[in-house]
């Protein structure tokens, strides 16, 4: 294939993904290796961001953002009353929704198994022997 594919995988999605190889107990979070990153403009929705934050693993998000160099000024610890802090919400929105990994790999922290990002989509299918 001559054309290169783009995957769109947001850090928000990455925060929910885990390795499900058989026998793995510590498959989260997946290590993110990005070769190509793009920043896209997404409509800012403060209510959405405020409600998503408690559902996230904040440390995993910080790690992933740092590993691809897009942490910015995002605080490492969640401050109290972040829901009303518009500036913080905007930064969180940017890191969660607007930074998109274009090509790369997701690596299981326990087994080292790499899930490739091919044809624009992360391929999380397991082989026969891994199930």
């Amino acid at each position, binding site marked *: *294939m001559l054309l290169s594919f783009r995957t769109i*995988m947001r850090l*928000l999605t990455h925060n929910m993904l885990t390795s499900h190889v058989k026998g793995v107990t510590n498959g989260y979070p997946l290590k993110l290796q990005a070769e190509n990153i793009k920043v*896209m403009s997404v409509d800012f929705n403060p209510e*959405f961001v*405020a409600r998503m934050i408690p559902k996230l693993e904040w440390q995993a998000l910080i790690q992933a953002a740092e590993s691809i160099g897009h942490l910015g000024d995002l605080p490492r610890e969640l401050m109290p009353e972040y829901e009303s802090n518009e500036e913080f919400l905007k930064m969180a929105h940017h890191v969660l929704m607007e930074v998109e990994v*274009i090509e790369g790999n997701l690596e299981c922290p326990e087994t080292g198994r790499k899930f490739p990002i091919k044809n624009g*989509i992360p391929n*999380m299918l*397991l082989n026969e022997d891994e199930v």
Partner: protein
Amino acid sequence: MASLDVEGIGCCVVQNEDLIRIDATVTSGLEQIAKEEVEEKLGTKVVKRRGRIRFDTPYKDFAHKIQSLRTLENLHVVVADFEKEGLATDSDKDAVLKHFYQLVKTFDWGPAVCAWKTFTGAFPHEPGPPKKKQKIQDSAKDTSKMLERYENIISREDGPDSDKTQDEAADRTESVLSEDAQDSGTAKVVTQEKGMSKMEIFPLQADTQTSSGIQNVATIVKDKASSPCTNLSTDGQDDTNTVPAAVENHGPLKPKFRVTCNRGGAKHSFTSMDAARHFGGGINDDLGWPVDLTKFDIEVVLNIYGDQVTVMIALTKGSLHRRNIQHFGPTTLRSTIVNSMLRIANVQAGEVICDPMCGSGAISIEGGLDFRQCLHLSGDNHECACPRTRANIATINNQRRRSGQGVLPVDTLRWDVGNLPLRDETVDVFITDMPFGKRHGSKQGNWELYRRTVRDMARVCRYSTGRAVLLTEDKKCLNKVLTEYDSLWSKKLVLFIKMGGLDAAIYQLKRTNNPFPKFLEHELLSSKRKQKKMGIPRSERVGEPITEQLGEPITEQLGEPFTEQPGVNMGEEGMEENFGKQTEETPVSRDTST
């Protein structure tokens, strides 16, 4: 009466406060959901009929308001609706048909035509599409070509605005791909592009409306010789055998029209074609509009059901259910049904919505457009499905980018639905269209698939607040699977709908409070039973728990009390009798003996 030309009407005929009556078709079974949507968005009272709903709305701004309705398929404005006593039983065919011819004069066409003109915008520039839809088939061997096409679209998504024209051409390209296994040997890859001179279309099937179950046949033939009518044309010419010049050489102000007639509910003495012919004849004579069956501007719909006659003008040129999707898969779901399912799921802001078997991504895309305060995850295991979803998303993103809007909050992955690579309790709502086993998959395979799906969804879904909305035709399989997992999912509602002739059902489930156990008792039992059947001696049998180590005896697990009562919970939810059947299921008693 002077011949009614559209330009002459203007908007002064209808006042802003005047009410116009809208009649809309809906997928059979979802009338209640559509009614709720209209009542919520427009605040008017809605009347339900089988496969359609009707409501009044003030003329002011109505076009904008009804365009925001997303569960309706075809929209019409009602000209007249009345009951003609004895229509069904009248055996004098000629008299009845003459009556249809004369009916035209009795209506006030002004408000309806005015509403039509406002809704459709410019007239007479855009004639309607041909009535019969042509399905274009794609051979399965051309998968690589198809994937390449998707690649183009996806890579263009991040490209600069300089290739705008290319984007627009791509958007205008309507390629309906359907991988019908039966016809894979004979079909060719074909694309139909508006504005391009080359057009190769292989007509295969005419699309027939099945929502109301009535055959949709319509012709209008101005058969002057056999017309029983007397001279009714306006300029006093004698037109028994010749067509008046005013009708033949229509000026730019007279809209071309066709009459579509649906007849049912009784054994009338006439056919729908007869009625359409005479009614159209009346319009042609009285209003002076010329006839064109394929490139029409106005479509007049004449519905006859028993003694009830309704005359309407169609507002939408094609059904609204084909919006959003450019690249159709073999089982793409209608956007109107998708929207109804999202409403059933009661999606809230800040939730994670997941479609683990997305196909062409219809559900996530409609969700991303209409419920933008959520994250929509879509996934599939098929190699064609993910690129197709991405291409559909990219097409919409390109359009939105050009109009200055942000991209859709939708992500696509490739995964196995029975082994989702998601953490426990991360998803709020699962919405999916499960394989029926007809066009995709098999009834046999469904047993395994549905079990694994329901199981893993229970692990990933949030306890007690999470829900699932599943659409399937294989109700027997899903019912059985749900009773097996009734400690994890409770059935709130089952809605029966008719999809293209198939009796499908939408299941609304709620995740119970019970945590996802290490292994499930009945699965262990059934696996031991299987091994016994196979003749493996007892000492060598293994219990096959799901994720736990082998050989663990069952007795330890039986002591676990479940906090919630298993069973089926059927809520009434305001459902009325005339629109859906409901099942009564008794709770299944658990077999706790070893």
